[in-house]
């Protein structure tokens, strides 16, 4: 009996080696495209902000708004309450603008730099293929300027606006004036202020009354040029009875210097409307010693302004040296619904401090939080969430579940849930568990002829299933692949 056990243990440890090899694999999507890009000198001052605004040909009011944000940012202090560690960022050592040199607006894909197109192909999203096959309109962001936007014609017929923010500033100033900064004002936090001052570009989506967006909208982010911070700004507005599903996904090439990414995403949802926002994030996590990798400090927030409105955030976070973000919902309208589904995977020296905020203000508002954290290697994974039930949120309801899985004895899993309830008719539930992949579970699957590697894969996929089920089809496939690559097992 003992012998058998020993044999199994040996087998297991052999499998673990295989798993370790897989886990320690190099970042698969790393490569640098050589495209001539126009990069601003390092440093940040009012002139740089004016230069960015000028480069984009922005009207006076926009420049003023940026400057206001910049002046406010100068007075702010870097936040320190997070559970991540990184060397002090020198904000004067970053270049705040980088654009591929080609400037004029393009009408068709043929006009796009072939080098750029090849980059997207390597990433597995050939634009032309996607255009025809998947029915997904792609607003490709290469570094900071949108270079190609597809399917705009189809969307135009429906009245949907899907363009870059800089175009929207020119073409739809009334919408930008009304909504930009309405959910995340530049006074919100340090990185939101920085973003407001220097944001280079991003996506703008407007779904008019009663329109159900005919396709899933998607942006592929890609950070290129070395040492360029990327400051994206996304604004999505769904008017009454509208619906849109928006996908965001990212990969970035290997490099040594840390890159700062401070994006802001704002969602506005009016009566009976719904926005579904899905993210797959796989930026360069740094090498095994934690060298390099991207700092991903993002402010994402949606406001359910209307009755019966709904926001659903789904995220799969596998990349970045540091992920620090809390996609949040302000549930203002009666009966509005907020959802947050998250899988955060950290390996090697990665750090993640992520979660959500559900602010219940309106009556009968409901929210669901499902967060799955997986830590491997020497990484640290934190869930930090706030559920706040305001005084007038009669009958509000929240259900939170955050589970962590530990894959090595050197990693960490942490939960910091804040629950603040000011209304007695509210019902709030919070549950959290921490566990590891059980040897008995692996053994059970081994018994059925499944290798340890596959077994671990199955168990982890099962662990994350609740979240993957909420991803759109295309993303669900990609997410599973990513998960498999980031950590097939590493049970130690």
């Amino acid at each position: 009996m003992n012998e058998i056990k020993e044999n199994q243990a040996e087998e297991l440890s052999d499998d673990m080696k295989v798993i370790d090899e897989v886990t320690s694999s190099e970042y698969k999507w790393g490569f640098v495209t050589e495209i001539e890009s126009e990069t601003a000198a390092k440093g940040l001052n009012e002139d740089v902000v004016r230069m960015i605004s000028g480069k984009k040909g922005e009207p006076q009011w926009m420049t003023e708004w940026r400057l206001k944000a910049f002046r406010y940012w100068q007075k702010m202090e870097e936040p320190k309450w997070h559970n991540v560690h990184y060397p002090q960022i020198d904000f004067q050592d970053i270049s705040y603008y980088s654009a591929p040199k080609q400037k004029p607006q393009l009408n068709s894909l043929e006009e796009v730099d072939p080098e750029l197109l090849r980059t997207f192909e390597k990433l597995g999203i050939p634009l032309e293929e996607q255009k025809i096959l998947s029915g997904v309109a792609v607003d490709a962001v290469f570094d900071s300027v949108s270079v190609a936007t597809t399917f705009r014609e189809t969307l135009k017929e429906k009245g949907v606006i899907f363009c870059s923010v800089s175009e929207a500033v020119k073409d739809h100033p009334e919408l930008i004036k009304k909504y930009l900064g309405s959910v995340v004002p530049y006074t919100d936090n340090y990185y939101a202020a920085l973003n407001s001052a220097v944001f280079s570009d991003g996506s703008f989506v407007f779904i008019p009354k009663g329109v159900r967006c005919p396709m899933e909208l998607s942006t592929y982010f890609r950070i290129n040029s070395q040492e360029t911070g990327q400051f994206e700004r996304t604004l999505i507005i769904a008017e009454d009875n509208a619906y849109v599903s928006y996908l965001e996904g990212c990969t970035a090439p290997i490099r040594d210097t840390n890159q700062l990414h401070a994006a802001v995403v704002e969602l506005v949802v009016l009566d009976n409307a719904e926005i579904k926002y899905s993210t797959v994030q796989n930026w360069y996590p740094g090498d095994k010693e934690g060298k390099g990798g991207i700092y991903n400090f993002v402010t994402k927030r949606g406001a359910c302004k209307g009755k019966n409105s709904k926001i659903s955030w789904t995220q799969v976070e596998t990349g970045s040296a540091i992920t620090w973000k809390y996609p949040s919902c302000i549930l203002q309208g009666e009966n509005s619904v907020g959802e947050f589904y998250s899988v955060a995977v950290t390996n090697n020296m990665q750090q993640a401090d992520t979660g959500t905020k559900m602010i219940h203000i309106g009556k009968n508002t409901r929210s669901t939080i499902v967060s799955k954290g997986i830590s491997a290697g020497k990484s640290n994974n934190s869930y930090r969430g706030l559920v706040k039930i305001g005084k007038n949120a009669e009958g509000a309801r929240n259900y939170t579940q955050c589970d962590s899985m530990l894959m090595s004895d050197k990693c960490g899993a942490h939960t910091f849930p804040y629950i603040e309830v000011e209304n007695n008719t509210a019902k709030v539930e919070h549950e959290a568990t921490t566990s590891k992949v059980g040897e008995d579970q692996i053994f059970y699957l081994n018994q059925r002829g499944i290798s340890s590697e596959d077994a671990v894969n199955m168990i982890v996929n099962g662990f994350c299933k609740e979240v993957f089920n909420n991803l759109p089809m295309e993303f669900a496939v990609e997410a599973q692949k990513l998960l498999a690559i980031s950590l097939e097992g590493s049970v130690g």
Partner: protein
Amino acid sequence: MNSKDFYIDSFKKFESKLNGESKLFIHQLRKEALKQFETSNFPTQKNEEWKYTDVSPIVRQSFIPAVNAVQVSFSKEEVGKYLFKDVDCHLLVFINGLFSEELSLINELPKGVVVGNLRNLSKENPGSIEKYFGKLSKIENSFNSLNAAYSVDGLVAIVPDGKIVEKPIQVLYLNSSANEEVLSSPRNLIVAGKNSQVSVIANYRGVSDKSYLSNNVTEVFVDEYAVVSVYKIQNELDEAYHIEKVQAKQGKNSVFNHYNIAFGGAIVRNDINAVHNGENIETHYYGLYMINGKQHVDNHTFVDHAKPNCMSNELYKGILDENARGVFNGKIIVRQDAQKTNAYQQNKTILLSKSATIDTKPQLEIFADDVKCSHGATVGHLDEVSEFYIRSRGVPQELAKSMLIRAFANDVIETIKIEPLKEQINHMIFEHLHKIEVNNE
């Protein structure tokens, strides 16, 4: 004069009364603590650990340290009203944190066991105390240093290896003053040697028209295979401020039970910390806070799982009515070595009124992989369906509510091992509920 300067100033007066005592080791510690107090500040809400508790009402007032205040005297009969009856126990009574010999009754103890008060023992037997005093509780904020600076008296229980103190030790902390706002600073020390057992009932009561600040620090040493239970029942006045920090250190195979039953005060803050220093340790925390009016109760608990094969179990329940505010922060750290840890934590709160508020933060920080940890937190109101069910059996609404609340509280109460204490706490809950009902009408 602000309160900080007042406490620094009062120290001189306190020293002048000490005579010979000022040469004792303990006074050197007090002086050091005062120095720390001078350079530190009271916590503000900017401090994450004090985010939901605003102590400025405490800081605004200058409470006269009990050693400088007019002592109030009580008869045995008067004190008797505040005791838990029918508990066969050793009794120590502290008035405003100062020991009252004539009201106390310490029965025969097993050989070598020391049960007494800090002031006398630090004169008679300073060696036994010096070994432990201040070794666990590090000064983290001005409340801690204020306690240490004025640490004149408090419970001392030292149980040597292999001894069992059969009868629980009941300690009555009675705060009372006619005209002054008094600061009492009990400093408690519980030491349980290897294979020893001891239980302490810490009974906090107030009879004063004036507000007062009870600022406590309790150090608990639980050596290998020892079992220590602390039952804290805090039933003070609506004007009272109460702060306590419990710092426990456990050796292998030891058990530490801490009960924290709070009926409130203007501001009540408990910090209950246990550090594991060995394998197979058990830590149990039970809490019940039942508050109304404008009361504020903040419970911070912490278990530091530093070694493998240990378990911790925590159950905190809150019942909040009127404008009461509850805060719960339960932190569990499982360090890298602490494999095979089992850690469970639950915080459940019922809000009985529209304006009651709860802020709860169950927090896990885990660095070991082979562990089972879970925490749960719920906030809700009384279930209408259950209430309807009881009423449909002919029970009046008020009683139905009270039944549901008592059932909710019972999960905590039923684990109390001292039978008469359990009964009397149940009775206190009933009284408390009754008061609430009367107030509502």
